[in-house]
């Protein structure tokens, strides 16, 4: 019987980014934020994430035209890594709003 292993016949979805303009942007990002990666695999992996985040910044710019969106110190992180490492408010059943403690009485703000 022919060897039944499944062979990949399509290219990786992500085009090879080495030598592209995106890689040059990535290099600038690395020097701006003092980033370094321990292996070549990690470098290529982070370059791929960076390319996606450049697209995400462009989407955010369209969705949020009065702000300025672009490359930040988080541009080599997936959204999941970013949330896990840099946010930190636990999900809580908010119900009607505040969760612990009393709610402040309404202040009169007329006039």
């Amino acid at each position, binding site marked *: 019987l022919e060897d039944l292993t499944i062979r990949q016949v399509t290219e990786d979805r992500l085009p090879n980014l080495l030598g592209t303009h995106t890689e040059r942007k990535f290099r600038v990002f690395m020097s701006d934020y003092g980033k370094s990666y321990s292996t070549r695999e990690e470098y290529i992996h982070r370059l791929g994430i960076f390319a996606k985040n450049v697209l995400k910044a462009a989407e*955010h710019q369209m969705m949020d035209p009065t702000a*300025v969106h672009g490359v*930040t110190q988080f541009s080599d992180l997936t*959204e999941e890594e*970013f949330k896990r490492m840099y*946010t930190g408010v636990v999900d809580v059943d908010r119900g009607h709003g505040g969760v*612990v403690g009393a709610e402040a009485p*309404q*202040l009169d703000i007329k006039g």
Partner: protein
Amino acid sequence: LPKDFDWREKGAVTEVKDQGACGSCWAFSTTGAVEGANFVSTGKLVSLSEQQLVDCDKACDPKDKKACDNGCGGGLMTNAYEYLEKAGGLEEEKSYPYTGKRGHCKFDPKKVAVKVLNFTNIPLDEDQITARLVQHGPLSVGINAVFMQTYIGGVSCPLICSKKRLNHGVLLVGYGSKGFSILRLSNKPYWIIKNSWGKKWGDNGYYKLCRGHDMCGINSMASAVLTQVSS
């Protein structure tokens, strides 16, 4: 209520801090509110310890036992207030400096700089939040940080930003009336929000978010705290 207001101009806000790769935003939001309340009551600005909260605070939300303060794993500002009320207060930054990872609790009650007497949740109403901000000092707020990963400056006013998925704790320090928003064809008022990702992020460490739409859930988790100087 004044058209524009900024607690930074009154000296009630410490330098922008950096939580590092640690999900401790809730601790920075908590210390910011306590630092501001302490300033309002004493006129002195003292930088307070997030590390004490990261190492020692394990308080849980009484209504949701899964929602507990867990160092770099996340927490809630209102849980932290509960912890501070019971623990006896908060040390200064310099006596319990930040390391960016959870360690053994080294809290020393004799070094308490500020006590937390009480705290309160602010109603989900933009005007009430504005009034409490002016009256109480900087407020702890929760926000959906989805647009903050790529934010560089300007007034953020996303067309769509879920009000439900609050995942980040920040500090409301003021508001302005003249942030231009093209899509809404007018000068939109905006909040001035202190973040804890260092000065290089955003607008010198700050985030400007348009007011009037409960944008990204900014009204959903506002709280204020009452402090007393430790004798």
